[in-house]
């Protein structure tokens, strides 16, 4: 009798087993369990938007297939440079004209006389507004990648991401000086440029600022190559720059504030001239994931002009009223 009870118990156990298998195979939805090790990047990317003082005013869709640089001239016309051509729009986004170039322009700058400086991979070309090539400078070297040009009354500064150095040239293109090479004696750390994003600019007060992207820093140099000061912090908060090499581009507002753009977490922010975080222009939500090369320009009305190379347009952000 006792044995029989054991057998029945064992049978019930077996049946339970088979039932459990059936249930697990056909009726379980265990795959919807949350990930205990979730690393939520969305939360990281969607920061508090109340800090954003800017709003998108308008978009200019380019007809170029690939775009790399944006610049403004004295009359606030907008220049877009990319593969095979340069387009010029009025400040309201009306198409003015277009001319073709040979090759790809990686960056563009327009001086006060409306000469257009194009960084053509390894060399610089100067065009006039009507689309005529004025002059072509000799290449500093085959491995050079000119990623930024700044022009003053007497000098032209070139950022070379390939050789990780800044050149000071005269207006005829003769190289005078190399700035920012590693020099421990003069406490120059040297540029770390892991990817071809290496920007420089002339502040409204006339000083030269160069991004040291690998160190997430801005470095201020005198024209003869002395390091004056630096600012910038590598961290993942809104105040810092993160990723491997950021900021990728910057421009100056008229009060000397920095407008910076980053890749990785795509965001455009404003820092005061002293390097203190000020406000947000745009966050990742505005861009497609993986957007790189958000070139920046600022016009006379302090509108922030952003080149979006993925959506193939120029997007103009203005301060909220």
């Amino acid at each position, binding site marked *: 009798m006792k044995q029989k009870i054991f057998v029945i118990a064992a049978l019930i156990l077996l049946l339970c087993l088979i039932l459990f298998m059936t249930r697990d195979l056909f009726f379980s939805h265990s795959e919807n369990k949350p990930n*205990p090790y979730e690393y939520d990047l969305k939360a990281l990317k969607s920061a508090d938007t109340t800090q954003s003082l800017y709003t998108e005013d308008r978009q200019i869709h380019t007809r170029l297939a690939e775009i790399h640089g944006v610049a403004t001239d004295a009359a606030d016309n907008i220049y877009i440079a990319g593969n095979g051509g340069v387009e010029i729009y009025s400040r309201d986004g009306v198409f003015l004209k277009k001319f073709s170039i040979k090759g790809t322009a990686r960056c563009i700058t327009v001086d006060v006389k409306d000469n257009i400086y194009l960084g053509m991979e390894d060399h610089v070309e100067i065009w006039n507004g009507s689309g005529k090539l004025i002059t072509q400078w000799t290449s500093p070297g085959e491995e050079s990648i000119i990623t930024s040009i700044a022009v003053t009354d007497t000098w032209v500064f070139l950022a070379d991401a390939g050789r990780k150095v800044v050149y000071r040239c005269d207006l005829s293109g003769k190289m005078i000086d190399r700035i920012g090479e590693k020099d421990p004696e003069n406490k120059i750390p040297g540029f770390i440029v892991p990817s071809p994003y290496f920007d420089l600019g002339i502040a409204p007060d006339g000083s030269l600022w160069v991004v040291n992207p690998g160190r997430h820093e801005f470095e201020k140099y005198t024209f003869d190559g002395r390091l004056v000061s630096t600012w910038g912090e*590598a961290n993942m908060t809104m105040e810092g720059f993160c990723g*491997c090499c950021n900021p990728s581009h910057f421009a100056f507002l008229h009060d000397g504030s920095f407008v910076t753009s980053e890749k990785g*977490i795509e965001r455009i922010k404003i820092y005061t001239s002293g390097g203190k975080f000020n406000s947000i222009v745009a966050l990742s939500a505005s861009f497609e994931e993986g957007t790189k090369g958000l070139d920046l320009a600022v016009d006379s009305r302090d509108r922030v002009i952003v080149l979006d190379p993925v959506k193939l347009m120029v997007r103009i952000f203005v301060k909220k009223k």
Partner: protein
Amino acid sequence: MPDRREFLNTLIRGSILAGLGLLSGALIFRTGKEGDCGFDFTCGSCSKSKDCKLPRALESRQMVWQLDPSKCIQCGRCATNCVLTPSAVKCVHVYAMCGYCDLCGGYFKPGTKTLNTAAENQLCPTNALKRKFVEDPFFEYTIDELLCIGCGKCVKGCGAFGNGSLQLQVRHDRCVNCNQCSIARNCPSGAFSRVPAGNPSLLKGMGTETETGKLKSS
């Protein structure tokens, strides 16, 4: 009567044997769609061996599980679904791809302000990712596989902010090579597949993959 039964038995036995022989023969020598190679057992002398889609007759038929990092979405199931605890899936560092960043997206928690090795800054739940200063401003990151549970948190961080040099892989010194991998069953992106045991890595950026992503057979 018994004779007849015996004869019938022998007949059936013979046909079962023949059937089994036929089945195994078909399975061993079965051809792919463009199979007309004459089943050269060595494969070595075959001129078409590069494009051959047939299973190699003898070598490299042993298969092991591996996950394709390019399909991986870091859902964390590698950590929870392996029959082993901790999982046989580990984060593997492809040094050749690493940017040696100071601010490593795979190492630091978001919101970290000071970049040091303090435990509260680390993204890794088990502190398996180690950071070592190399030279200004570079840092080397290594994985302590004894601690790594294969959760893929750092992989996600590295993929989002860096080069994607941190990748999840089945480590075959640990993997017991189940007939049906229980992670593969639950992998939402179908990243798991059986790969030849002779070349079990699907790491990206090691310089071994061809355009199609398939491994060159060495």
